[in-house]
């Protein structure tokens, strides 16, 4: 298609130039962080720091992963993985079950439960932070994986996504299952679950990123450095006084912190876009 709108000319090259400029500006902070993670501390504290990568990649990353500053970064990566996977899987499991109940059954208080879940859309954790912390503390959930995961897994968004999807599933399928004498859980496991595969995958991508990038909640709930997640642990690596931060190790940690979610976006781009657009509907 080469209509008169898309002619090649000066405008065409300006368009490319503008986009490349945009990409470079957006990339620059990450490039600089990478450079900083491959040079030595003296090179950084005598500004300007070099703008091309140095030869200390291995040492800096090894130092970060093995010893870190308060806790080994490998440990924080592990904690983050548990948290992100727990939040993503937990949300998917409890949401798909409750959506199944709400769509495929008629029972007392159904509408009440529906609105109860719906209302949680209005309560981000940042808003109810102090009382939620107290509840978690009373349950003895400080410095524990359930404490990192549970308060964040109730999600109206995922429930709605599954509800919308189930409503589009033809009634004939449930009818056929009933005629064949299959119970509701059989219908759920053999028909509904396989049909929801793409939705589950798309949701998983979005929820994994959401879980991995949590900051405020892990900051409150983990006081033991061994339980820190990597995203909140970076800030803890800065010295509190007037000392100079260990920038090469901190920047190596920053690169490691963004690697898993960025890899998910790049390698599962189609699912990511699907998930992003559907969860915002």
């Amino acid at each position, binding site marked *: 298609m080469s209509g008169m709108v898309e002619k090649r000319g000066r405008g065409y090259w300006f368009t*490319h130039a*503008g986009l490349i400029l*945009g990409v470079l500006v957006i990339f620059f902070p990450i490039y*600089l962080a990478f450079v900083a993670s491959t040079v030595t501390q003296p090179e950084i504290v005598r500004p300007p720091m070099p703008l091309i990568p140095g030869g200390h990649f291995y040492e800096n990353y090894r130092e970060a992963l093995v010893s870190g500053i308060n806790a080994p970064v490998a440990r924080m990566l592990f904690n983050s993985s548990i948290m992100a996977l727990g939040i993503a899987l937990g949300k998917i499991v409890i949401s798909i079950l409750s959506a199944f109940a709400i769509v495929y059954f008629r029972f007392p208080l159904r509408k009440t439960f529906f609105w109860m879940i719906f209302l949680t859309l*209005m309560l981000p954790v940042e808003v109810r932070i102090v009382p939620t912390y107290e509840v978690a503390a009373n349950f003895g959930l400080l410095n524990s994986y359930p404490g990192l995961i549970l308060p964040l897994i109730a999600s109206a968004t995922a429930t709605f996504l599954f509800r919308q999807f189930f409503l589009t599933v033809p009634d004939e399928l449930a009818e056929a299952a009933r005629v064949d004498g299959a119970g509701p859980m059989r219908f759920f496991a053999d028909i509904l679950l396989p049909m929801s595969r793409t939705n589950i995958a798309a949701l998983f991508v979005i929820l994994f990123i959401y879980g991995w990038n949590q900051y405020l909640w892990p900051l409150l709930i983990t006081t033991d450095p061994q339980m820190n997640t990597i995203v909140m642990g970076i800030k803890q690596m800065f010295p509190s006084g007037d000392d100079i931060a260990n920038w090469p190790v901190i920047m190596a940690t920053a690169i490691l912190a963004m690697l898993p979610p960025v890899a998910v976006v790049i390698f599962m781009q189609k699912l990511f876009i699907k998930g992003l*657009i559907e969860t915002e509907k």
Partner: protein
Amino acid sequence: MEKLVTFKGWKLPLLLLAPQVLVTACFFFWPAWQAVYQSLFIPDPFGLRSHFVGLGNFEFLLGDPFYRASFWTTAVFSSLVTLVSVGLALWLAVMADRLIKGSATYRTLLIWPYAVAPAVAGVLWLFMFNTRVGVISWYLGQAGYDWNHVLNSNEAMGLVVIASSWGRISYNFLFFLAGLQAIPKSVIEAAAIDGAHFWKRFWTIVFPLLSPTTFFLLVVNIVYAFFETFGVIHTITTGGPQQATTILVYKVYSDGFVGQDLGSSAAQSVILLVVVGILTIIQFRYIERRVHY
């Protein structure tokens, strides 16, 4: 919309709902109720007892110049983040949409900063503008401009705005590009045949057709700036200098956890609940309208 074919029984569905309802009750409704309850009390100085003050905490807050300043800070901050991230994303999306080939490549290159956590974005920008070692602040110094966001309120605000907008550009770009690609090319070609040049076509046809996307993005970016930028502010400025970057969510945290003023923090939570409620209603009204299109 309801299913015509359903299964019988009430025990199984209640069992299926139980996990979500339990989590919601423990970690959403109970804390929200606690926030409302605590907001009506003031603990004594030893934290042993608290006495009922009715709306005293709210009255105090609304008369408190720091709290009022925090409202203003939040308004400035979220408007700037929304304008910067929506504006730049629109500009990039319009350019990517002009290309017949290659827009998918630029999309891949532009969307992934979305995955970088706000707190990590904060560290990256802090590094570039650090007053001792920052590359950009050093070059600014060479050019004769003395950058110091630790002391200068406007520079601190500028820095947290840029760091908060950065990853958001990806998100907005994705929605704008999808919106642009949904506009029928025939409409644009018709205008081109009538002699309308690019910017004329943009303002008279493309931008109005894009308005549902733009409106949606304005609302979600305001919500983002209000509630999800805590990490950026905590890593770069910790609310300073002189509370110049203390947005409402940050103040709930600093009064509740750092200052240990639970009554005031709870009252602030309640006020924020009302703000979220209003924003959610706006968002839903918009969704309803879009469904009727």
